[in-house]
């Protein structure tokens, strides 16, 4: 066991865990931030996606001991205008079905729009291509990303 100081959604947290513990399980079990989901444990489905230093990261395969920057999870996503726009677009387009993968989808979409405010279909497929949705809400995910992109531009104008 070892102590780690983490910045999660802007707050300082200290956890005492095995160094090999993936960030996912620290978030879920130590910090009770269960919006970040376990889907596969091998970074194949994207349900566990969070931002570390602004980069979309599969938290299920990154040991807590390797975390070096601030973490944003779905619970903190709405504090930022891009995050808020994406969440609103997801609701506006009625994207979710079972909803289990959507935290990860939304975190991947936010990272995409921060980097590429006007994504093409190819950009969307590249950025979202590792996020699995068994309900296959993909058509609406595309629509919501396009809608969020528009909202962000209007907000900035």
């Amino acid at each position: 066991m070892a102590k780690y100081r983490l910045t999660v959604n802007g707050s300082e947290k200290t956890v005492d865990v095995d160094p090999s513990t993936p960030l996912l399980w620290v978030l879920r079990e130590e910090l009770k931030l269960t919006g970040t989901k376990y889907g596969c444990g091998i970074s194949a489905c994207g349900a566990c996606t969070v931002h570390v230093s602004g980069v979309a990261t599969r938290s299920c395969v990154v040991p807590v001991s390797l975390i070096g920057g601030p973490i944003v999870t779905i619970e903190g996503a709405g504090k930022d205008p891009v995050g808020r726009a994406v969440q609103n677009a997801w609701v506006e387009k009625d994207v979710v079905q079972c909803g289990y993968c959507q935290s990860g989808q939304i975190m991947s979409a936010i990272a995409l729009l921060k980097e590429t405010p006007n994504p093409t279909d190819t950009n969307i497929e590249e950025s979202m291509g590792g996020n699995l949705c068994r309900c296959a809400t993909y058509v609406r995910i595309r629509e919501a990303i396009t809608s969020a992109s528009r909202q962000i531009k209007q907000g900035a104008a």
Partner: protein
Amino acid sequence: MPPIVKTEDSRNLNRRSFIQITTAATGGLLISLYLDGSSAIAQQAPPPKVYPPDAFVHVRRDGHIVITVNRLEFGQGVQTSLPMILADEMDADWSKVIAELAPAADVYKDPLFGIQMVGGSGSIAHSFQQYRELGAKARAMLVAAAADRWKVTPDQCRTENSIVYGPGNRLAHYSELAGDAARKPVPQKVTLKNPSEFRIIGKRVPRLDSKSKCDGSQKFGLDLDLPGMKIALVAHPPVFGGRLKSVDDRAARSLDGVRDVFEIPLAKGSGVAVVADRFWTAKQARDRLKIEWDLAGVERPDTVQLLARYKQLATTEGNVALNQGDIKAMDRIPRANRIVAEYEFPYLAHAPMEPLNATVKFEGDKAEAWVPSQFQTMDQVAIGEVLGLKPEQVTFHTEFAGGGFGRRAVTDSHVPREAALIAKRLRGTPVKLIWSREDDVRGGYYRPMHVHRVEIGIGRDGMPVAWRHVVVGQSLLAGTPFAMMVKDGVDETAVEGTKDTSYSIPNFHVTAHHPTVNVPVLWWRSVGHTHSAFVMETLVDELAIRAKVDPIAYRRKLLKADAKKLHSVLDLLDQKSGWRKALPKGRAAGIACHESFETAVACAVEVSIENKRPRIHRATVAVNCGLAVNPLSVESQFQGGLGFGLTQLMAKGAITLKDGLVEQRNFDGYAPPYIMEVPTTIDVHIVPSTEAPTGCGEPPVPVISPAVVNALSRLTGKRYRTLPLITV
């Protein structure tokens, strides 16, 4: 409604539970459990004949109206659609409606199935009338309370948006009347609205659970956190039915936070449970177990060998499912006018995004369970059996589920049973059992592997005259409480979509073989239609090509005149898919239509080939599901259901076994569709209807795979009869 016919007397069946089963005219099982006094399932009371509104509606003082949903919400949207139905008849203010999932209780059983469950695309179909009546009764009681208060008659009052209006500008909000209304007698009969009076039903109503699923606040079964809760994982034998011979658990127990390691019996064989404070500890501990398994006498299936065996079986007659017309008609058709086709379908895992889980707390004379369950009644009974409790001593909470697709409706309740076995040993401590993704992918309960062999004799007019169809695959129902659906050696779920096809085939012969194989199998969203529609719709397309007739026109001609729903969707699809006649070079359109669970669907896709894989540019779908309670939800179900159906076209869309071992482990080896593999756009068109609503969860799934390969065939001239589709 289809006629309900009691099929068999079950007294001659050596089963502990006693089940009456009927088959709906166009697929879907109607099941009701009866009592014979010997089994816990059978001891379940039937659902009540009259539903008390107070079990379903609660008007809060603050004006919110809480409506209880008698189903699992796992993506299909009933948590919104069922309250819409009740709220409409109640004239409730929709903006103040809150939906809650019901715990296990008799009153929440499916009115037709007789158990509490989600399946057979029956949630809306079976509860439409029930929820309308509940809403109308609640409204009548509120009106009666207002009428009393104002000393007027109920027919002098009207209702709108949770307010009762009386003569002389009198009005009262439902929240003010709820106390008095609750003391009113529940009316025996109520007048339901004329569909033209609906204010909520039929509207595109956004989901109630959207926001909570976008901000991380929605709790699923796996998110449950109780004081003192422990996490359990189970090491399962590598071959189904294997038993523990010995375990060296010293390395596992040496980890900080490991609480217990012990053997538990499984549905087949036995395994080793590991209990720890945290998931990661439990996983590390399980990885450190040194287990010797006893696999003596355990059948070790191998899918390559099984396929050879199935293909051989398919050349022989099976048990007769249908014998229509002249069985010898084929012999009179010249060989040049026959098609002989052999199809292969692999095992498929459901792989819902939320791994399987169940949480149980055992306290001696009672227990509490939290399960994302499609089968609340069965799972509650199973937990009770393990703990020596009556079902009613097990408080059973229905947790939100991250998908399911049939995987959370398991007749042996093996996940809740494992959780209960562990909780029994840790008396007083809540235990959350988690099946890791590897446990899920390797854990069985797959859509069964199938081979179909079909011979078609074609008449001079290009239409089929004779059709011989042999289906080979494990029975889903044999050995389960639903075994009575196996009739004359034919599992109805294996031949649904073939023997009851709406195509007019004068001489039609369908038989089935059900080999016994040591692989647990289970219904997978749309059940037998997953393979039967693929066979029927690719063959009909092949016939259309041979006849040089447009695929929609050919289907219309071949369909029976009374297949009204299918005709209606083909007509609508034809109107909406004009794009298919002017496609750029390198692209082709594929068509399929199919009726399942009484909902008819026709689909057109635009496909090209990229890197030897189908690229699906768009899909247009026409649906006839009777009255569409929530067209927005219907649209979502169809968009998503098409994507789910594409699982079986994925290059890695198969579970295979070698020497008894499942060869896939996770989403690296078993890869369902990601965003680039589904159509870029999907437009859904609903046939306007005021007929009773039918299901939309499963019917989208069967049509997409045949539509896509039909397009591929038009591009390459090849036929695609082996799934998964490794390459084009």
